[in-house]
């Protein structure tokens, strides 16, 4: 049963995605969708294609076959004389504003203060006036619990703090959805909790989220739906309680027993 905050509208829809790295097929006909307000967690053994799938959503990866749509708009490609061709970088950049991304290694801009990291995109891409952009940034910093770090540089922050800034930076563009690529994998264990807490708050506000993670406890708590991948395919999906207590696919069972025990 889906919670009421999730609408039926499919915000993100991927169909028949195929992706090769050289001679390796990393995505093998994947269908995947995310509804508005939904929190979807992608799990799977390493090399199963979950991070690649996530990166296809905002076209950080090109695809060899299939379609990526965000709000019914084709991402990265356009029609020319009845055929699909690669879109212009400028158009792709425009489309990416709809979807924010949080990276495993934070990727904050090291030459900018925390405040500048958060305001650069709204200032340059949305023409928000500076004062408004900075007020919004401070509001976001309060949300992630770092209002006193506005003028610090990324290198002066701990990993957990950097990742919370990265979440604030992604939120500053007011995206329709947020993608998380193993957001706690590069963190020291004692910092994982603070980042997950921010993500949990965010999920509570009705934000549409797609999360690749190995934090199974967190997945079970926060996800509306868990999607399990192996060898470039979706092998199983469903509500977290069902996936974790009664996995159907043998590979899901193997994965869960390896991680949980």
């Amino acid at each position, binding site marked *: 049963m889906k919670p009421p905050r999730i609408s039926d509208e499919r915000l993100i829809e991927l169909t028949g995605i195929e992706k090769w790295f050289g001679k390796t097929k990393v995505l093998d006909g994947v269908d995947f969708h995310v509804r508005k307000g939904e929190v979807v967690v992608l799990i799977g053994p390493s090399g199963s294609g979950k991070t690649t799938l996530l990166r296809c959503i*905002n076209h*950080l990866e090109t695809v060899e076959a299939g379609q990526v749509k965000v709000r019914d708009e084709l991402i990265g490609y356009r029609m020319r004389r009845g055929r699909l061709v690669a879109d212009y970088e400028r158009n792709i950049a425009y489309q*990416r504003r709809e979807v*924010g*991304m949080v990276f495993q290694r934070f*990727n904050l801009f090291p030459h900018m203060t925390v405040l500048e990291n958060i305001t*650069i*995109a709204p200032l*340059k891409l949305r023409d928000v006036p500076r004062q408004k952009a900075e007020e919004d940034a401070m509001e976001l910093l309060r949300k992630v619990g770092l209002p006193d770090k506005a003028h610090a540089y990324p*290198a002066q922050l701990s990993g957990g703090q950097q990742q919370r800034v990265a979440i604030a930076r992604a939120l500053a563009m007011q995206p329709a959805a947020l993608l998380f690529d193993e957001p706690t994998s590069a963190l020291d264990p004692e910092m994982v909790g603070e980042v997950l807490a921010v993500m949990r708050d965010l999920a509570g506000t009705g934000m549409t989220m797609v999360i690749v993670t190995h934090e199974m406890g967190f997945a079970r708590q926060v996800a509306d739906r868990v999607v399990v991948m192996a060898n470039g395919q979706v092998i199983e999906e469903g509500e977290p309680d069902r996936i974790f207590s009664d996995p159907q696919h043998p590979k899901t069972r193997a994965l869960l027993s390896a991680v949980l025990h």
Partner: protein
Amino acid sequence: MHFDWGYFWSQLLTPSGAFLHGLFLTVLMAVAAQLLGSIFGLGVALCKMAPNRVLRAVAGGYIWIIRGTPLLVQIVFIYTGLAAANILRFNDIALPGGVIFPGSVQAGILALALNEAAYMAEIYRSGILSVDRGQFEAAKALGMPPAMMFRYIIMPQALRIILLPIGNQFNIMLKNTTLVSVIGVSEMLLVTETINSATFRTFELYAMLALYFLLLTSLWHLFMSWAEQRLARSSDRLAAPRKTLAGGKEAAA
């Protein structure tokens, strides 16, 4: 061996007006060519890394030709060769205030700049490639188009990395201006030769010329040391993980 110390000191400390004008031309050409070459070189570097195959080939060919031929030949080719073929003739330009901008100086600056661009392009490229790939991805994920990504995210980081090589290039540029004497630009070397042909104080004059170049490059060296220290201080707070040169292959994407 006879070294006329009196002549040497008087020339060194109270150089003639002609020599000072040569000094001015040397500095003017070096600064102008370095600035033009740096701008053009950035364009060449971006073309060399562009997704478009034609742009990459053109930029690659340009770098190949420029780095594969002597600067001296390029200077003569641009000034004398192009004029002989009626392709391009550098005429003197009268600037407001009665100052003449000689055609040979224009050609000299252009040749030095075109040469510099090829070397600067490779320096820019190495700097851009050494910026962590995650920086490109973060900028893209925010929705920045390529131009904005380079201006605000990539170049500020790349320039920190390539500050020293750029300083080195200007040191070389200061000295390379002497080559422009072959097309008749009265920069320091040619002025010295002219004075020499009248006075035959060859040893003293060339010693003095060398000292003037040493002075110019030393002043530049002092400036670069200062800039480097400032950078080191600011990098303490910017000390972020950064990939080494070999790592960042994806940079052009």
